[in-house]
Every structure is written in C-alpha cells, then in structure tokens.
C-alpha cells in the first residue's frame, strides 16, 4: 500500500514540475526531429539504391554483344538491402558500404560508404534517434531522478516520511515504481514514434522479423534506461544533497556515454590490431594472382577435364577449354578469398569479444552493439550481405564461364547477347532474420541483463541502508 502511495505522489510531483515537463517535451520534439531527419536519409538511400539498381540492370542488359568473360569483368553491382530500422539506428551502415561490385577474379569489399563523402562533419555525432536513446534519454533520466532521495534528504521530507512509520523498503519500492513509470512514459511514446517511422520506411523485410526486432529493441532500451534509473536512485540515496548527487551522476553519465565507448574501442583495436588496408589489399592481390603461379594445379585441372572427356589434348575437347580454365581460376581464387575474408572476420570477432569484456566499464558499449544488431546495421548483418553478394558473384561468373565453355566450342570471337544477359537474375538479397543470427547476440543480452541486475542491487542496497538522515 505504502509504495503505491509514494509512487503516486512521485508521479504527481513530476507531473507538476515545469522543468520535468519541459525536459520531457523537449525530448519528444528532439526525437521527432531526429526521426524525420533519419527517415529522410533512409528514404534517400533507398531511392538512390533503387535508382542505381535499375540503372545497373539497364546497363547490364544493354551492354550489347560481347564475350561472356568480358561481360563477367563488366559485371554488376549487388546493392545492400537498407534495413527499415536503419532510420532509427544507422549503426555501421555509413562505414560498411552500400554496394559490392561483383566482377570476375575479384572479391571486392563494399563501396559507396556514406562516411567517406560526409567530410569533417562525420566526425561529430549525427542526430539519430538511437543516439538520443543512448545518450540523451539517460541524461533525462538522471535529471528526473537525481533528487529522488537527495532532494528528500535535503528538504527534510525523508525524515518526515520515516517518522510516520514508513519502512525504507516501502519508500524504495515506491521510488523504484515511480522510476519505472518515468521510463515507460519516455519509452512508450518514443517506441511508438520509432514504430511509425519503421513502418513508413518499410523496405520489404519480413513483417514478423521487424516486429520481433522492434519488441527486442523496446526491451533492450527498457533495460538500458532501468540501469540509469537504478544508478540514479542509488547515487541519490548515497549522497547528502542534490548538488552532490547531480555532480556524481553527470560524471558517471559522461564516463558511460562519452569516455567509456571511445576508450573500449581504442582498447579493443589496441589489443586486437585492425589489419592494415594495405595488407588486406596485398592479400587480395596475392589471391588474385595465385592461380597463374600455380602451374601444378593448372596442369592437374587440365588433366581432370581431359580424363573426363577421354582426350589427350585440349583442342580435342568438345568444350571451350578457356571457359573451363577461367572457371577453375575462379574457384581457386574463391578459396583464397574466403581465407582472407575469414581471417578479417575473425579479427573483427576478436575485437568484438574484447569489447564485450570491456563492457563492464559501461552499459552503453554493449547497448550500442545490440542496438545496431537489432536494427540490422552492424557488421554481422553486413557480413551476411557481403557473403550473399559473393555467392551471387560466383553464380554470375560461373554462368558466364559456362556459357563460354559450352557455346564457344569452335573458339574464335564468340559473343553472347541480351538473351544471356537477361538470364542473369538480379541480386535480391534480403536482410537475414534476427532469429537466424540470435546466437551471436545472446552474450550481449546476458551482459545487459547483468548490468540491469547489478544496478538494481546497487539501488536496493543504497535505499535500504540509509544512515545519514
């Protein structure tokens, strides 16, 4: 009963506080502006993507008659599906690239990185809804709760409350309930706005998957806000006045939001150094040229097809040997490319593991990873796109090489035309479902839950062990 009464009083006071209301509405307006800007940006991306994809298709279909291997070099682009939740959380999308050029002999990394063209401004934080949720809302929660106990202590109302026989547990329960109400009051309208923006920016992904991602985002941010609410209540209970409470909490906010994420990133890249661009390009270049150097393999593959058709010379083959050799060249290179990219992926994974361990320094570190994962804008989702694009590249090149192999049997200047080009289906990658990747995020959910639990224990302990009245 008492916690209900205390919680109701807290809500009434918060509702009447002009400052609280101003902060609340300012946050909503800021979120609206951020959503509008992000939605416009996503729309622009989607429009550019659709335009570029159509253009790419037109150019491919109308390239005229030419040798299929030449067409394989001319080739096509795979455009990354833009997750509708990228309007909420751009994650790594600005840095990971939006398209991959699928050409013969080369497994290219993604290009068209928004960050490359954004200039110096990209070094500053963009006003995205996710940034508001990650940085601003915790600040709002601190502003709303820093005086929760410290204010009552300073004003003498805590003594007044206790003098009526109210237990510290009842006061703690009431305060925590009021804090949860505050979080819901912030989270519900913001989630509704994000939901609307996601629906507006719908990019053909599975509705069920989108819904699951939204629900999990809601839960993850709910937990994140709770962490800050519990820390705010705990610190407020431990400090003697509003000023001390506010200074302590703002310092913590600055460390959690500004310092720790940068520090953990730097520590992760220091512990697991990023492969140098030059080295990666060198490895890719070596993979590209390896086939021509491996005469033994070439001879082995040559013997394989000669045996298959029971002939002793390539000129006796009923197929075009050049087309066959080009395909074996591709397959040889594919294995090497897989090794280079797998090594690169392992390095990133190691860095993320270090980040996971370092997230003991700040809940924001782990939240950022989870948020981008749920929005489909993190490295893992990009890797799925890159792999699908690679499989599509292999499909196109194989089709071109096999056309050459089976149709250019007389040798000479063989050319294919629109009939072949139109058989190549467009890359139509879909964002992977979250359930298919969930195992990669389980530990992150665990760490965030641990943060929430420990911060709750801190709040509970601080509010039940009040000594300085």
């Amino acid at each position, binding site marked *: 009963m008492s916690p209900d009464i205390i919680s109701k009083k807290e809500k009434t*006071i918060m509702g009447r506080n002009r400052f609280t209301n101003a902060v609340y509405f300012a946050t909503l307006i800021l979120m609206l502006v951020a959503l509008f800007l992000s939605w416009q940006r996503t729309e622009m991306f989607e429009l550019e993507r659709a335009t570029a994809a159509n253009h790419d298709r037109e150019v491919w279909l109308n390239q005229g008659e030419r040798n299929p291997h030449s067409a394989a070099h001319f080739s096509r682009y795979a455009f990354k599906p833009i997750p509708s939740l990228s309007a909420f959380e751009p994650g790594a999308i600005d840095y990971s690239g939006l398209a991959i050029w699928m050409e013969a002999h080369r497994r290219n990394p993604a290009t068209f990185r928004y960050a490359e063209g954004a200039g110096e401004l990209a070094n500053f934080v963009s006003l995205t809804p996710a940034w508001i949720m990650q940085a601003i809302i915790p600040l709002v929660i601190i502003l709303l709760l820093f005086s929760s106990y410290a204010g009552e202590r300073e004003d003498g109302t805590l003594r*007044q409350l206790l*003098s009526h*026989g109210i237990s510290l547990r009842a006061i703690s329960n009431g305060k925590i309930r009021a804090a949860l109400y505050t979080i819901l009051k912030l989270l519900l309208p913001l989630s509704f706005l994000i939901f609307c923006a996601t629906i507006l920016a719908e990019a053909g992904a599975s509705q069920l998957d989108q819904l699951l991602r939204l629900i999990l985002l809601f839960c993850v941010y709910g937990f994140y806000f709770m962490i800050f609410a519990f820390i705010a209540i705990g610190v407020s209970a431990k400090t003697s006045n509003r000023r001390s409470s506010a200074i302590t909490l703002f310092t913590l906010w600055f460390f959690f939001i500004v310092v720790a994420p940068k520090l953990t990133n730097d520590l992760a890249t220091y512990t697991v150094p990023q492969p140098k661009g030059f080295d990666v390009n060198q490895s890719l270049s070596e993979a590209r040229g390896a086939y021509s150097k491996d005469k033994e393999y070439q001879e082995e593959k040559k013997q394989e097809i000669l045996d298959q058709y029971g002939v002793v010379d390539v000129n006796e083959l009923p197929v075009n040997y050049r087309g066959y050799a080009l395909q074996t060249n591709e397959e040889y290179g594919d294995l090497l490319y897989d090794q280079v990219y797998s090594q690169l992926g392992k390095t990133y994974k190691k860095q993320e593991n270090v980040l996971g361990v370092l997230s003991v320094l700040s809940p924001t570190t782990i939240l950022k990873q989870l948020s981008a994962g749920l929005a489909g804008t993190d490295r893992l989702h990009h890797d799925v796109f890159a792999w699908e694009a690679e499989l599509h590249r292999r499909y196109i090149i194989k089709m071109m090489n096999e056309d050459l192999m089976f149709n250019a049997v007389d040798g000479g200047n063989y050319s294919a035309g629109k009939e072949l080009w139109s058989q190549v289906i467009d890359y139509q990658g879909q964002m992977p479902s979250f359930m298919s990747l969930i195992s990669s995020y389980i530990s992150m959910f665990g760490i965030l839950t641990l943060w929430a639990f420990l911060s709750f224990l801190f709040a509970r302990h601080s509010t039940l062990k009040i000594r300085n009245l």
Partner: protein
Amino acid sequence: MIETKKLTKKFGKNIALNNLDFNVEKGEIFCFLGANGAGKTTTINLLLGFLEPTSGEALINGLIVQDNLEASRSSLAYIPEQVSLYPELTGYENLEFFVKLAGKSHTSDFLVSCLENAGLASNFHNINTNTYSKGMRQKVGIAIAIAKQAKVLLLDEPLSGLDPKAANEFCNILKKLKEDGVAILMATHDLFRAKEVGDRLGIMRGGELLETLHVKNLSLREIEDTYLAHMQAYN
C-alpha cells in the same frame, strides 16, 4: 507513553546524551529546556529511531524504538523546527499523503476539519505549500498529527521563528491535543512558552537531565532563575 531508560548516545568520544531517564505520561506536556548541544534534539532523534543508542533504551507507547521502528513511529507525530512538506503539493494534499501513509483512511471533510482545527485558513488548503510561511507549515504538521490520531507528539524547537500570534495559536493547539490525551515532548529555548504549555520542564545541559520542574508550582521568574543557575554553573 514516552520513556527513556539510561539512554546514552556517544559520537566517537563525545557524549551527546548520558544516562537519560525520563517519561511523559498520556495527556502530559514535557518540555526540554537547554542550550544548543544540550542533547534535546539527540533525544528526539533517538525516540524517532533516527539514531541508534550507544546504550539504554528509548520507548514509545511501551515499545522499544530500535526493535520496533515502524510500529513505534506509527503511533507518533513529529514536528521539527522546519516542517518539511512537498512544495509541489497543496497543504491538503500533503496532509492526505502523510495520513494515507500512516495507514489512516479519512474522508476529505475530516481532513479539511483537521486543517481547520490546526488553524490553517481554508483559502490556503488548496495552495501549494511552497508559498506557505513557517507557521502555516507547522499548522499542516499539527493537522497531520490530529488526522493521524497520534498518541505521541515529538516537537523539536517548533516555536523558534514564529511570531507571537502564531506561537500563541500553536500553544493553544498543543493544549487541546494534551486534553485529548496526547503525550507531548517539546524541545525549546522559549521559557515563557514552556511555562505556558508545559506540565513539567526538564533542564538539560551537556547531555544530562539536570533537574525536572513541575510548572504548576513555579513562577516564570523561579523557572528562569533555576535555568540560569544551571547554565552559569556550567560556564
């Protein structure tokens, strides 16, 4: 109703209260007189359970405070020098809040009558308490005690800073509460008001209760002389 047995409180090496023995009966007003640091507020804090005694016992309504914090507090009302109220709530809402917390359920008419009995003008009932004077805040404190039907009232310097009219009104309310059987302990510097409302006066100095006077048999001058004699002996 209010009782202490060999109650002692030390802060490090400093003895704030030393073997205090006293009691306040139902329908009695006991006033603690003493200079700053005499141990008056420490006694009240020990009776409220805000401090833990180094030794001895503080009892409210027969319950040892430290062992029965919530139960002992539920039967008392506490009015400090500055009554702490929530500034965003009206006087009526503050009253309603604290009374509900005390587990009492009253009609709004009853709560209004409590405010009126405490002397708070009706046009102030529904105004936020951030506009209230000290006297008005104390009236809300008294209204809470009335509505809570507190059997014990602990007052810590409630008269300091009140103008004579407000102090007089306050004392009249205390007399009424006394007639209703409330045991009242008041710490004060004001000998005149202590003589006016108190049944007994306890003169404190350096954490010790030096003498207890029965007001009925003494004039104000006699009380003052006794008090000053104790203070001068100390100096």
